[in-house]
């Protein structure tokens, strides 16, 4: 793919609301966009370091809860002291959510990367379950199953307009698009830097990576922190867009949705989560009319198996292989076109 591709794709998404006026479809695009941000964060771990986080929804939910709680304020009794937090500006709460999610990622990474193998998967999946139990049971803080209501929407400072509260769908769309673009660029810079090369090295052959002086555990923890922080940002976007957060945000099916987006799109490619995210963000809307939700999940599960069996690299690498072969076939001299990371 050429260096202009990201800009062309961005331009396309910027112009979408110009020709698509339907508010419902816009809503679908916004929620898909939020999930794409989460999928991009998951891809950093799963695709580039080869570590599957099956509790990614925990970081997403922690970002959502922190951002929501910060912006509506709370008081809670901790070890006999009463901690009162006044409502903070939404942007500050949003950033705090990113930090807290990153911190959770650091803790999980520190503990589970003491050993390799299946441990990280099991620790993350259990962690998500525990966070859900906390959200359900710590009613003083989270309102439990009654959910956090009336979460304020995000307030932005826009040139010419001053402080603007993002109520409507259109500015929300552009906000999500901006965050997605930043997440994409952040991950691109990381994976094309020294750190990213270390990730790929340890994914391929850990003992070899270690032998050339890569501190494997440290890099894995870094990847987890960045990934968790981006997922937290997605969670914050979600909280202030939907404006209600309940413990169901930690349901396992959301993690599965992210994993499927990354796998189907192509793990370890920059565009994989975007392609997979658009596909699986829009697909449920078509399936909704023809199939019950259970059937939709069966299709998800089966498509995951089918992809691993027949297209193990995902759609994006398969596509770039096809275009590569077409280009080679079209040119009189077989060019040495670079087949690269998205």
């Amino acid at each position: 793919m050429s260096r202009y591709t990201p800009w062309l794709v961005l331009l396309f998404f910027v112009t979408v609301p110009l020709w698509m006026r339907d508010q419902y479809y816009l809503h679908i695009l916004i929620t898909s966009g939020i999930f794409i941000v989460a999928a991009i964060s998951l891809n950093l771990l799963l695709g580039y370091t080869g570590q599957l986080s099956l509790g990614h929804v925990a970081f997403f939910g922690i970002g959502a809860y922190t951002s929501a709680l910060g912006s509506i304020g709370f008081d809670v009794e901790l070890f006999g002291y009463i901690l009162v937090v006044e409502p903070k500006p939404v942007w500050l709460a949003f950033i705090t959510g990113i930090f807290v999610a990153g911190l959770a990622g650091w803790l999980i990474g520190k503990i589970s990367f003491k050993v390799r193998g299946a441990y990280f998967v099991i620790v993350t999946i259990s962690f998500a379950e525990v966070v859900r139990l906390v959200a359900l049971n710590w009613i003083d803080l989270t309102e439990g199953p009654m959910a956090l209501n009336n979460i304020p929407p995000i307030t932005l400072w826009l040139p010419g307009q001053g402080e603007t509260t993002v109520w409507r769908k259109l500015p929300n769309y552009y906000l999500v698009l901006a965050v997605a673009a930043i997440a994409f660029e952040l991950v691109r810079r990381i994976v094309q830097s020294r750190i990213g090369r270390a990730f790929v090295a340890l994914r391929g052959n850990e003992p070899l990576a270690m032998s050339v002086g890569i501190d494997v555990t440290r890099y894995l923890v870094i990847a987890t922190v960045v990934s968790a922080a981006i997922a937290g940002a997605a969670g914050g976007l979600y909280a202030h867009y939907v404006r209600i957060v309940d413990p169901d945000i930690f349901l396992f099916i959301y993690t599965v949705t992210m994993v499927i987006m990354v796998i189907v799109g192509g793990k370890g490619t920059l565009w994989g989560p975007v392609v997979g995210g658009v596909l699986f963000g829009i697909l449920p809307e078509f399936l909704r009319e023809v199939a019950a939700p259970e059937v939709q999940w069966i299709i998800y599960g089966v498509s995951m198996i089918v992809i691993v069996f027949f297209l193990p690299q995902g759609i994006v690498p398969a596509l770039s292989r096809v275009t590569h072969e077409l280009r080679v076939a079209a040119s009189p001299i077989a060019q040495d076109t670079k087949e690269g990371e998205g």
Partner: protein
Amino acid sequence: MEQFLQHVLNALILGGTYALLGIGLTLIFGIMRVVNFTHGELYTFGAYMLFMFVMSLGTNFFLGIVLAIAMGVLLGALTEVVLLRPIRGADIDTTMLVMIGAWIAMQSLEQLTWSGIAKSVNSPFPVEPLVMGPVSVSWARVFVFAVAILLIIGSHALIHRTRLGKAMRATFQDRETAALMGVKINQIYTATFALGSGLAAAAGALLAPVFVVYPTMGDMAALKSFAIVILGGLGNFWGAALGGFILAIVEEFGAGYISSGYRDAMGFVLIILVLIFKPTGLFAQKERVG
């Protein structure tokens, strides 16, 4: 003191089924190097099979248990042959993804077949509990415990006293050498997966009359099995058996004396403690994944 004894008794009874779940998972992991995410679904499947045989078809309860376990063994063998055999030799992540896909598909299929409404299974046991001095326990739970212990002893005998078990242990130690010695690896894998799945289905079928049956009941069972397996050390039979009882004791006392809302979080706390202080599991063997 009475309360304490009652908690110990409850933990013992619950621990039996936890041990079944843990042993099934640890065998599959130890021998096949597969992180089996369908384990919880086999547990659910066992419970639904008992419901189908006893409540829908009117089979005798005890025969229903046997049939439910047999169906679990069959489904396990089928899963292995259809999903795992074609990707033999793939890395651990690939098989993990396939198993996650199978997990989601199976769970949704169960929901589609039996709806999301919780079902209960009648058992033929008397309603009056068995009273032993200060503590009491229902006969249904005594039955669960007895069958679980029998199955644990039976699986251990299968692994240590039969030719099939010997081949399994050989595969566990060194797959290539075992294959060179004439062990049919594919058959061993199918047998292992069927056995592990059968144990999970047994746990589900045994607990179905004690609790209720619903499609997502296996998720928690899967998480607890993972906790038990980490506790006991991946691939360790007695580690998993003891791990099951330890988890049950911690849960029972945690729920009784700390907070019942966090009962299901105790397994995670155990995992974290084990990973911090003894990452190879409490009963470490030499053999473990790197």
